[in-house]
């Protein structure tokens, strides 16, 4: 059985207490594509990203309406198991946040959450995830070492590996390179391109070159609305909306 993991959003609204942060958003995100969210700070792109794995649940006073359908489940249904949702929808944060444990334990965290106990099985998942995140060769000799001893770029790739260890179908990335130097950024972008084969990736970025380099489709956000959503090349070479054009040409934002 081949379950589908595309994302369909209909009339999504998000409120932080009285603040209407996301206004009636609609979007269709296809499987195994990289979709970039761009827009000025505070436009709601990160908030929207967190709608897909319900991280906004943690924020007090946050209310979401509308439909968010991943594959065949409406993830805001009452009987949705959030743990299982977050297993399917992994997330990488802006600042690398490896746990203060060994590299191995970081990667094994999610499988252990889902009940994998056997050492051989865990070893296998750890190696596979680290290989997928192209960091295996750098860390294979120090799996028992503190993950916080790694460089920022390595930490971020470790966090990607950690997310992959849950074997998700969708990977959400919230400005994953904004805290990294250009070389580490390049490595992550390369990695994201490789991961596309197996995962649906949604990436929030402030870096428009990054969006053009890696994404298939781009959505431009402004003040809680999606102004334009199209193939990346169309957005950047031939934007339909004046506001998109102003933003990508650097006239504001």
């Amino acid at each position: 059985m081949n379950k589908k993991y595309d994302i369909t959003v209909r009339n999504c609204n998000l409120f932080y207490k009285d603040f209407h942060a996301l206004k009636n958003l609609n979007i269709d995100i296809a499987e195994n594509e990289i979709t970039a969210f761009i827009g000025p700070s505070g436009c709601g792109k990160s908030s929207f990203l967190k709608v897909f794995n319900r991280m906004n649940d943690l924020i007090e006073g946050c209310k979401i309406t509308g439909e968010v359908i991943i594959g065949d489940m409406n993830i805001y249904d009452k009987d949705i198991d959030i743990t299982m949702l977050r297993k399917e929808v992994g997330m990488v944060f802006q600042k690398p946040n490896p746990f203060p444990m060994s590299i191995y334990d970081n990667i094994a965290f999610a499988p252990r959450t889902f009940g994998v106990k056997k050492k051989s099985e865990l070893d296998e998942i750890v190696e596979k995830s680290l290989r997928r995140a192209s960091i295996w060769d750098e860390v294979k000799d120090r799996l028992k070492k503190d993950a916080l001893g790694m460089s920022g770029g390595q930490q971020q790739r470790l966090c990607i590996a950690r997310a992959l260890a849950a074997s998700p179908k969708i990977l959400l990335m919230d400005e994953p390179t904004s805290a990294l130097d250009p070389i580490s950024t390049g490595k992550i972008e390369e990695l994201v391109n490789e991961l596309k084969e197996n995962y649906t990736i949604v990436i929030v970025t402030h870096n428009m070159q990054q969006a053009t380099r890696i994404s298939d489709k781009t959505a431009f956000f402004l003040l809680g609305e999606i102004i334009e959503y199209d193939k990346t090349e169309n957005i950047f070479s031939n934007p339909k909306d004046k506001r998109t054009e102003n933003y990508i040409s650097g006239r504001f934002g």
Partner: protein
Amino acid sequence: MQNAKHKRQIFKYALYKRLSQASLVVSLLSLLALVIFIVIRGLPYVNFQLIFGDYGAEPTIKPALVGTLYLVLISVLISAPIGIGSAIFLTEYTNTKSKIIRWVRVATETLAGIPSIVYGIFGYLVFVVALGFKYSLLGGGITLAIMILPLIVRSTEENLLAVPKSFREGSFALGASKVRTIFTVVLPCAVSGIVTSLILAIGRVISESAVLILTIGMVVDKMPQGVSSPGTSLALDVYYFGSFGYPEQASATALVLLILVLAINIIATVIGKKLNKFSGGRL
């Protein structure tokens, strides 16, 4: 004109520096004087007989050592789980900015500042009199547990709050439940601080006397026969020996107490550092 002002400034800065330096010297010297005094007066009388001998014609502190051990065990076994549990609830399950929680925090701080003799009279009225424990190590231990509870809650809370939010987010994003997040991510990060504060709380228990005068009976010459028996503690022995004609033993016991508290503080520091190896102090 400009020059005179500048010179005045320089003089002022130098003066502040000297003043703060002088305060440091005075505080260190007074501490040093105390330690030297206790060592000179007490060291000649510290011997095997005093510490491990049976209480006879010469007073010994064996009953006090055992009593102190009882008090430490009772108070920490009671207050550690309750205190850590309360702190977990306050930081992980409530909105830390809400009004009620802020009131709870003020209340715990106030409780931590209450003079210990007030806890003592409470312990006396409740355990010794009302509950009919009579003078007992158990009543004293429970009273001490109540006394150190706010300390443990506050310091555990601070240690938990110091764990970056990004760790919790990372854990939740990987599908971990709240309980798993608390036990596998948050608590291990905070454990060195929590253990340190527990050990420092033990230090408080060992140094306490006011509570115990009113609750455990200060029976200096008999070995305690269990938790319900009356007893004594090292701090009480210092008071007893000092007041009832054994000044040498009082100084010697004070020295033992001093060394014990010093040792506990060193252990707290060492364990704190050891447990911190994975976070390497980067938290």
